[in-house]
């Protein structure tokens, strides 16, 4: 039964094979059009990749910026704290404290009409400090609370809030 069906299908299979083997005629410029289409698709794909990369970089930058802001905020410097001392007869006044590693050269005060002063930008925190007048006289700040001191020199403390 199967052999009879195979024999009857032989002409049909022959026609199919023949049509598949027949040369395909294509119009003039078909190859060029196909190649141009391929080039357009490749260009579009490259553009999408570039757009994706740009969006990715922009998103990463935005996230990094937001992260930096969030990290910075708790330690953001204060707008400015002015340290001032009335010392009319002094020839030199320096500010010395936790914020400058107790370095007498870091923050000299500037003589003004009524007092010596300097303004520093400080991060939030608690800072101990003193004034040193004319290189040897340690003075606390009369405008801020005194600090407990283990070393026997007048010391003040300032708290800078967020």
């Amino acid at each position, binding site marked *: 039964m199967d052999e009879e069906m195979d024999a009857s299908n032989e002409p049909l299979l022959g026609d199919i094979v023949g049509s598949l083997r027949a040369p395909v005629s294509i119009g003039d410029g078909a190859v060029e059009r196909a190649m141009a289409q391929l080039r357009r698709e490749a260009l579009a794909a490259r553009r999408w990749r570039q757009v994706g990369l740009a969006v990715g970089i922009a998103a990463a930058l935005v996230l990094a910026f937001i992260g930096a802001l969030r990290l910075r905020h708790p330690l953001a410097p204060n707008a400015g704290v*002015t340290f*001032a001392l*009335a010392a009319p007869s002094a020839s030199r006044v320096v500010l010395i404290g936790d914020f400058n*590693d107790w370095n007498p050269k870091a923050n000299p005060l500037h003589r003004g009409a009524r007092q010596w002063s300097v303004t520093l930008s400080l991060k939030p*925190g*608690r800072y101990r400090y003193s004034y040193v007048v004319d290189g040897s006289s340690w003075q606390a700040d009369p*405008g801020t609370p005194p600090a*407990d001191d283990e070393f026997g020199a007048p010391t003040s403390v300032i*708290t800078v*809030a967020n």
Partner: protein
Amino acid sequence: MKPGIHPAALAASLLLLPLLPAGLVAQDARLTARLAPGPRAAVQRLVDSAAAARLPTEPLVRKALEGESKGADSTRIVLAVQRLLARLGTARQLFGPETNEAELVAGAAALQAGATPESLTRLSTLRPRERLAVPLSVLADLLSSGIPAGQAWSSVYDMASHGAADAEFLALRDRLTGADGRQRGLPPPAERPPSAPLPGPEHSP
């Protein structure tokens, strides 16, 4: 190819470096420059101990530099750093491992000024941890200024229990201690316009 560090290993090292305790990375150059070898080694050991316990090291270095700048002898410097380390450790125990440096420093200052550990623990339960530094600092200031402990504690505790802002704590401190308000962003008194005289009684005797 030149022998050297693999870029990935270098990048990993740079990323991990800040996670290492500071004392294990290098000796603090400021201590090396300003302290004599004896006290420097003792202070550095304390700094390393703090780093190993994940306590802040910078306050300890600053305390040593403060002592040096004030001409204190080595024994006093080392003792002061040692005591500060102990107070920072106590503050850490009271407030927990997530407490930041500002809170530990303020807590240590409050302990030094005479606040009891119990009072600090009570205060810490009233406010979120990130907002503890200023109330603690103000408590320390009040005690250091000679305000009676009971008054200082009740003033700070009342404000904390009402959810006061940091600026309100600083205003309280200024009011009680006579500080000039500079820490609240006000200019020094000499640069402020003269305030109007307080109204007096209409008919003075």
